[in-house]
């Protein structure tokens, strides 16, 4: 565990020193300010609108940061050949995969936490009230979603170029987020071989929709039931573990 944390710490430090991240921060702050200072579409009470668009933006930016940063972690180590002195130390390939996953998750946690704090401040300044439980739930669920995306991105980085990895992971995220309910409906009515294809897809693909509680946040609905919240946490840990085990197995087989 110590080795994994060390790899994560040092990768995190390097990422923070690169300027890429700050571009995202500035861009997001600019967009948020624009929306908060303008009364768009002629609507006078913009607090709900701001909650919706603000949350969508911080989620989108966090997803892009997570995927693009995680996708680069192992390929950069391979292309710069720093993987050799690293593996020559008492470090296993599994340590590298887990360390890189942890640093990818850490960078996404940090950026999302900053974005989320800005978002909450902006919402409060607009005079809107939101349940603290709901805020906590949406924060935790988004962190889990970002970890899941980081693990998927790390996994794809072992086969694909960085560009292809980022594109495919983003497409997978948007496709599943928007079409998973449609797949569920199709599964209910499907029969025979089609049913098996749909059910395999439905259970195999990650359920990004589980993590989306934006609508509750925007409309001040009740928080997610505790059992459901706990189940999503368990589901995330299970899914991430499976992906990291697969990543480690693939990386161990890879010729270096």
């Amino acid at each position: 565990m110590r080795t994994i944390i060390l790899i994560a710490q040092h990768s995190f430090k390097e990422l923070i020193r690169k300027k890429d991240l700050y571009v995202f921060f500035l861009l997001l702050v600019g967009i948020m300010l624009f929306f908060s200072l303008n009364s768009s579409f002629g609507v006078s009470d913009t607090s709900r609108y701001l909650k919706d668009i603000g949350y969508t933006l911080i989620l989108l930016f966090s997803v892009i940061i997570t995927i693009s940063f995680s996708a680069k972690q192992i390929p950069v180590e391979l292309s710069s050949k720093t993987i050799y002195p690293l593996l020559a130390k008492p470090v296993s390939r599994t340590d590298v995969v887990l360390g890189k996953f942890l640093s990818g998750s850490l960078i996404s946690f940090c950026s999302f936490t900053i974005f989320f704090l800005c978002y909450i401040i902006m919402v409060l300044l607009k005079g809107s009230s939101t349940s603290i439980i709901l805020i906590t739930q949406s924060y935790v669920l988004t962190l889990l979603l970002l970890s899941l995306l980081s693990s998927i991105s790390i996994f794809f980085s072992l086969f694909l170029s960085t560009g292809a990895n980022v594109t495919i992971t983003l497409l997978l995220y948007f496709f599943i987020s928007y079409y998973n309910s449609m797949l569920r409906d199709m599964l209910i009515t499907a029969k025979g071989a089609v049913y098996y294809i749909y059910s395999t897809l439905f259970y195999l693909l990650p359920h990004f929709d589980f993590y989306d509680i934006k609508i509750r946040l925007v409309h001040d609905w009740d928080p997610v039931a505790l059992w459901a919240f706990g189940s999503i946490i368990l589901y995330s840990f299970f899914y991430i573990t499976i992906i990291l085990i697969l990543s480690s197995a693939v990386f161990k087989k890879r010729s270096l």
Partner: protein
Amino acid sequence: MEPALQINNLCVKYGKSTDNAVKDLSFSVKKGSIVGFLGPNGAGKTSTIKSILGIIAPYKGTISIFGDPLSKRTKELIGYMPEIANYYNYLTPKELLYFYGKLFNINRTVLRIRIKQLLTNAGLLSKRNDLLKTFSKGMLQKVSFAQALINDPDLLILDEPTTGLDPIARMQMRDTLIELKNNGKTILFSSHELSEVELICDNIIILKSGQLVTQNSPANLVNKKGEHVSVEKYFFEMIKAS
């Protein structure tokens, strides 16, 4: 005396390739010696080194380090300097050495002293807080050499260590290697600088097409006529003949 490194019937191949990068290679390296690992490009030197370090798994053969098979514990006895490594651009040499040192679980106080000493020896103490992206190739080679020594290894494996170094730095590195040898360390280094090998090595190993051509002492190298020859002449004769 038990050898520092013993390789028996090592075979290495990459992926699904039917051609072996290393074929049935056997040799040993005596404790406290400097051994030059020579061969033309593609001879299998780097593949052998990667196998010794556990970076690639040989499909046949055994490797033992100080009598034990490769494990996390034996890795702690090895220092490795790669041929080329573009070390993390956004770290300083001090941070890089600290990171590598912590991977060996070296005590913080000991590590700080060692980093200072290694950077002083490399002539980079004043640059300790500069980002590595500002370093020249030669400076990066010195950092690379320093990271190989961070765990005070008993077996030092160097892949083309003098590439990119100026003549003064090369001489300093040769002196350091001899000093390390005098302190009981074992050194295996690959190089294309045959005159350098001749100057410091107790033994040379020549590979060609993944196979051992010869293992001998530079003092005992003789040509077909029985005359003593330099490492360079011997190397060319052996490579042509095999």
